[in-house]
């Protein structure tokens, strides 16, 4: 056994330094032959005889060298290296295949790799990057009926802390937002983790300055303290080593800085400020992502063990609901899992697998295309394989060679994909960071950098691509080539492209045509806003967010009206003061910025009455009465909002796209609409359409409805978007707005001041990414189809060269000749186009392109069909020209 391992090790060493060993072998053979020659001379042979005898006795240096190489190295690996070299050579020669196939593979593998890293980071990672992170868990209150995580009551948290033995360092956090005032810097709103002291013990990361939050800080009467992150220490305290003991104002309360955490530390999610979670038995901790209960599994305890104890401990019945209706169950999950979607653990793994499988399946169409190209090329190389077959190479060996050739291509595509994945993920990361809840940074366990898992996944995809694109044609071609190998060496009889390949080419043309109209409309739909612009001078508008500290919203229903009234007065005062600012000509507010309205499902009353419950996705916004005037929008029919609409009546205004999409040719005025209620909830009130306005902005694909602000709303707690028609500098205006807000009420939050065109630019980023992605995929499908047709035509010409030569020699006219040669290829294009048109029509019918964010383009299908035909004919034109230029005498001589 030891000798076996020594042999393996020696062979691997042999692989690593082949040149040294070769030179060693040469010297040894030279010494051997010299000694043998000297012996021969001593026995009385002539010098020639001695030399010849020495070589005969040795048995042929070349054969010996081959056997020796096989003995000292790893023969299959040597064979692989040779195949790879041949593969590189073939890639250089078949540059059409290399470019089209490589591009298609790169695109698909890149998409798959991006999806993999994304899923792996957000869904697949179970252990945060903490000491023994795999043992850090979250304890949840899971509603088994609604399939949702619920808030955890503080009583449950305290009970779990006191009783659970299977976990340690149990605690909780919730995210709050407070205005941070540091001396010498403008006040700003920051996200803060209210966290138990146990969180820092659990994270096991010591502070770089000061101390952690302690249990004593959690008591109601304790002095308020705050811990800050390294980044905060650098940016807001200029890395002041004497920061410990300084005070900062968070909201209205002064907090003493007691510790600075090291760079990158952001536990529990992406936090940079931590204050103690004060004891509050009547409260509850928000469900993830805004809060969570965390713990570390005790030594020797498994997740199942902890779950068993937690199940036995249970949850206390809710204070306001009957215990019998309680569908909540406590559950323990890996920490990061708590922040993914509302799913069971097994479900998540399945979701992930299914998405990855679907993504991997994207490889199939381009790989089948490449397989056609490889097959056509393989058949034209039959003489090479016949020669190898005759020299003793097995069919398996030739199949491996062909697969390795494609593997070289797919590996190059894989490497390109890995290179491209990084910048794409960086872009996606930028887009995700803009999600308001993330406040500019991703969860601390998400890392879009290089990962070995992603590299392995890409390697696996490259091998899979090589198998699909290489193995099928290799088996097909060698199955046909080899039995007739030697015969075909002389006879030059062609090997036909079988019915399978014909079907594939038809399918390929059909696929390209079927996808082309929808992808073009989708791509245009996403790109259109950037190309057309919003239709008004968005740069003249400044936007700001006006919010009230949610902590100030009274919990008791009875206190709400008074609070709402006060906030409305404040809002009116804010608007009045802003209007008084120099340079500001008008101010309005809405629930969402124009163009960023949430999508909602609505229904119309006539349709219900008519027995047809037709629903539509539209964008909905709540606006104040000055909204349309500020954006210079006049009613095309009916009227805009006035004083009547902000009372008890329910009215709505819709835009032109809404009318086109929802109402059609009918008169929109007077018709009633309402949001479709969620299952199990009561339907909301009906709104009567009182006006139709132009699209604002004019570049979005969905219709819009406006309802008067606060109509039906619970209160003013959700932030509203202020829009100022002003030429002011955003930075200066931001400071001024902060001042206005603080002077009026410290709990008012007036920030996020940006120009409207900048907001549009940022929201457009993901749309641009989508449309570029769609355009790239579509182009690669078209390119592959074109190259596939080109290969088919080239192959046909090569195969029938001799026949063409004879017929040309007999006086056949080039036109007839072409028609005869390419009848099959033209038939294939025509069949593909016919199937493609049918598929495109079906797809278009099934897919509501405007709901998916696309934009209807009139006449796109015939244009796409014409385009595909032109591509097909252009692909055929090169080989066609070659065919009619065939020199009869040359082909007859060759034959």
């Amino acid at each position: 056994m030891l000798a076996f391992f020594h042999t393996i090790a020696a062979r691997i060493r042999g692989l690593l330094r082949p040149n040294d060993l070769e030179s060693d072998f040469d010297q040894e053979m030279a010494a051997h032959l010299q000694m043998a020659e000297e012996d021969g001379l001593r026995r009385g042979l002539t010098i020639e005889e001695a030399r010849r005898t020495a070589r005969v006795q040795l048995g042929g240096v070349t054969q010996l060298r081959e056997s020796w190489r096989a003995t000292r190295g790893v023969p299959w690996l040597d064979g692989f290296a040779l195949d790879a070299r041949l593969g590189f050579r073939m890639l250089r020669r078949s540059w059409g295949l290399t470019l089209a196939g490589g591009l298609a593979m790169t695109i698909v593998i890149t998409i798959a790799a991006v999806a993999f890293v994304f899923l792996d980071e957000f869904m697949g990672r179970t252990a945060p990057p903490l000491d023994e992170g795999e043992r850090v868990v979250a304890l949840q209150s899971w509603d088994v009926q609604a399939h949702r995580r619920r808030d955890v009551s503080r009583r449950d948290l305290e009970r779990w802390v006191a009783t659970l033995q299977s976990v340690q360092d149990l605690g909780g956090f919730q995210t709050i937002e407070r205005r941070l005032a540091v001396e010498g810097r403008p006040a700003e709103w920051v996200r803060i983790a209210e966290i138990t002291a146990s969180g820092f013990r659990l994270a096991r990361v010591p502070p770089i300055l000061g101390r952690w939050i302690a249990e004593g800080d959690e008591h109601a009467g304790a002095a308020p303290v705050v811990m800050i992150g390294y980044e905060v220490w650098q940016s807001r305290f200029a890395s002041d080593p004497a920061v410990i003991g300084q005070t900062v104002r968070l909201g209205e309360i002064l907090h003493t800085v007691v510790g600075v955490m090291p760079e990158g530390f952001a536990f529990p999610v992406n936090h940079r400020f931590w204050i103690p979670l004060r004891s509050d038995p009547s409260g509850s901790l928000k469900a993830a992502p805004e809060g969570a209960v965390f713990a570390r599994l005790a030594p020797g305890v498994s997740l199942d063990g902890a779950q068993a104890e937690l199940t036995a401990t249970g949850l206390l019945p809710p204070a306001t609901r009957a215990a019998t209706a309680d569908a909540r169950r406590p559950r323990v999950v890996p920490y990061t899992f708590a922040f993914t979607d509302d799913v069971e653990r097994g479900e998540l793994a399945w979701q992930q697998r299914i998405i990855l499988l679907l993504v991997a399946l994207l490889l199939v169409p381009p790989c089948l295309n490449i397989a056609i190209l490889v097959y056509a090329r393989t058949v034209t190389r039959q003489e090479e394989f016949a020669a190898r077959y005759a020299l003793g190479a097995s069919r398996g060996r030739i199949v491996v060679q062909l697969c390795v050739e494609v593997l070289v291509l797919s590996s190059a595509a894989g490497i390109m994909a890995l290179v491209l994945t990084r910048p794409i993920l960086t872009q996606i990361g930028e887009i995700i960071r803009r999600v308001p809840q993330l406040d500019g940074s991703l969860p601390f366990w998400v890392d879009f950098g290089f990962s070995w898992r992603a590299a392995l996944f890409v390697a696996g995809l490259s091998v899979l691509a090589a198998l699909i694109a290489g193995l099928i044609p290799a088996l097909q071609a060698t199955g046909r080539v080899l039995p007739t190998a030697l015969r075909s060496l002389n006879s030059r009889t062609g090997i036909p492209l079988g019915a399978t390949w014909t079907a594939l080419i038809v399918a390929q043309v059909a696929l390209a045509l079927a996808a082309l109209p929808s992808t073009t409309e989708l791509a245009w739909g996403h790109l259109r806003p950037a190309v057309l612009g919003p239709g008004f001078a968005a740069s003249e508008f400044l936007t700001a967010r006006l919010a009230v500290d949610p902590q100030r919203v009274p919990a008791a229903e009875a206190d709400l009206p008074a609070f709402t009234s006060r906030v409305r007065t404040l809002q009116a005062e804010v608007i009045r003061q802003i209007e008084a600012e120099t340079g500001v000509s008008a101010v309005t507010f809405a629930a969402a910025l124009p163009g960023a309205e949430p999508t909602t499902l609505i229904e119309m009353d006539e349709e219900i009455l008519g027995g047809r419950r037709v629903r539509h996705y539209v964008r909905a916004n709540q606006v104040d009465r000055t909204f349309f005037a500020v954006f210079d929008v006049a009613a095309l029919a009916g009227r805009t909002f006035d004083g009547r609409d902000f009372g008890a009546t329910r009215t709505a205004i819709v835009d032109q796209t809404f009318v086109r999409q929802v109402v059609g040719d009918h008169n929109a005025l007077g018709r009633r609409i309402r949001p479709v209620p969620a299952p199990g909830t009561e339907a909301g009130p009906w709104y009567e359409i009182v006006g139709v306005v132009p699209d604002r902005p004019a570049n979005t694909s969905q219709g819009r409805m406006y309802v008067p602000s606060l109509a039906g709303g619970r209160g003013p707690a959700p932030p509203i978007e202020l829009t100022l028609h002003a030429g002011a500098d955003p930075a200066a205006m931001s400071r001024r707005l902060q001042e206005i807000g603080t002077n009026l009420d410290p709990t008012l939050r007036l920030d996020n001041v940006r120009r409207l065109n900048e907001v549009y630019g940022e929201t457009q980023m993901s749309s641009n990414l989508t449309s570029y992605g769609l355009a790239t995929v579509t182009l690669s499908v078209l390119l592959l189809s074109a190259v596939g047709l080109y290969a088919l035509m080239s192959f046909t010409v090569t195969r029938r060269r001799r026949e063409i030569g004879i017929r040309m020699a007999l006086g056949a006219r080039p036109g007839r000749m072409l028609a005869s040669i390419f009848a099959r290829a033209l038939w294939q294009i025509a069949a593909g186009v016919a199937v493609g048109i049918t598929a495109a029509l079906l797809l278009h019918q099934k897919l509501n392109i405007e709901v998916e964010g696309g934009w209807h383009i009139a006449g796109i299908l015939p244009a796409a069909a014409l385009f595909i035909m032109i591509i097909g004919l252009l692909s055929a034109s090169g080989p066609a020209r070659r065919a009619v230029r065939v020199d009869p005498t040359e082909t007859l001589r060759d034959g």
Partner: protein
Amino acid sequence: MSDAQSSILQGTLDLIVLKTLEQLGPLHGYGIARRIEQVGERALIVNQGTVYLCLVRLVQKKWIKAEWGVSENNRKAKFYTLTKAGRKQLQAETANWERIAGMIGRVLRPATGS
């Protein structure tokens, strides 16, 4: 291969090379091949190159080791030496060979045995 020459049974060349090195001490490839030819009266191996393949295998198994040295004719040559592991292997292989050879002998000449 002529019928008069018998090809060496699989694995026995290893045994012969090990034995040669045990008897003669450090020796180069040519010397080993010549020695086997002498002992086997040229009937044992077809060509000397086979010895080198055997030597590579034995070095890989660490039963022998190779070092460059100077031959009796003052020429640079690679010398092979039996290692401790090789010596143990030789003993085991010899015992095994004798057991099999004795058994085959008894099968082929049953009368003389009784």
